[in-house]
């Protein structure tokens, strides 16, 4: 897909020199990735609100709030990381540099796993007491 360097009439030149306007497909793909990160953050925020507001107050009200805080912090980090990565990728494609490799999705996965473990523990704890 990215190897298609033929320049048709009416299409912007892919630009071979450094610091040039990059191929529009890279720019748009980067933009969509940014938006996907923001939507992920929104999903986490929705989960945080739901866990605090909609879940019945359990025997461990504090744990509910801990879970909410963890989710909100995760949402914040995800959103900030989306912005940061957009900036880094934009700079890289403008200079023709290789894209920075980030372990960010792995961090997110670890965070989500942590949330899952917390939720599971909450369920088991409230079931065994209530």
């Amino acid at each position: 897909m990215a190897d298609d360097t033929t320049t048709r009439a009416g299409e912007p030149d892919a630009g071979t020199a450094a610091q040039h306007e990059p191929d529009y497909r890279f720019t748009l793909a980067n933009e969509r990735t940014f938006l996907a990160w923001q939507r992920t953050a929104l999903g986490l925020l929705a989960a945080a609100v739901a866990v605090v507001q909609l879940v019945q107050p359990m025997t461990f009200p504090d744990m509910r709030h801990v879970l909410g805080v963890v989710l909100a912090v995760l949402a914040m980090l995800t959103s900030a990381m989306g912005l940061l990565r957009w900036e880094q990728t934009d700079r890289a494609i403008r200079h023709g540099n290789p894209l920075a490799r980030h372990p960010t999705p792995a961090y997110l996965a670890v965070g989500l796993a942590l949330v899952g473990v917390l939720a599971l523990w909450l369920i088991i704890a409230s079931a065994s007491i209530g």
Partner: protein
Amino acid sequence: MTGARTPRDPDGSQAERTSLSWTRTSFAVLANGALLMIRNLHGSTHLVGLIPAGLAAVVALCTYVIAMQRQRTLRRRPLPNRIAARRQVYLIGTAMLVLIAVTAVAQSIPGHSG
């Protein structure tokens, strides 16, 4: 990859997918605002309690306006040379961070009113 030999405008879907992505994001913000409104139906209708939902509505509207702008820009043929939406990305990125922060603070303050 599969439709590489489409004769006309082979990358048209790129522009389409990008503006759809903006629209989808605006709906995601709106859904969050709706979720924040649910709690207001339960109990207190304090004006302060409406701040996060109101902020979400404003951010959703901004995102939708940007989606419309992007759609108009990306539909142009030939595509404009400078196509990066730097200002929009920074605006929405910052707005999202503020929205998350405000929501988190609002959730933790009047937790016992609802």
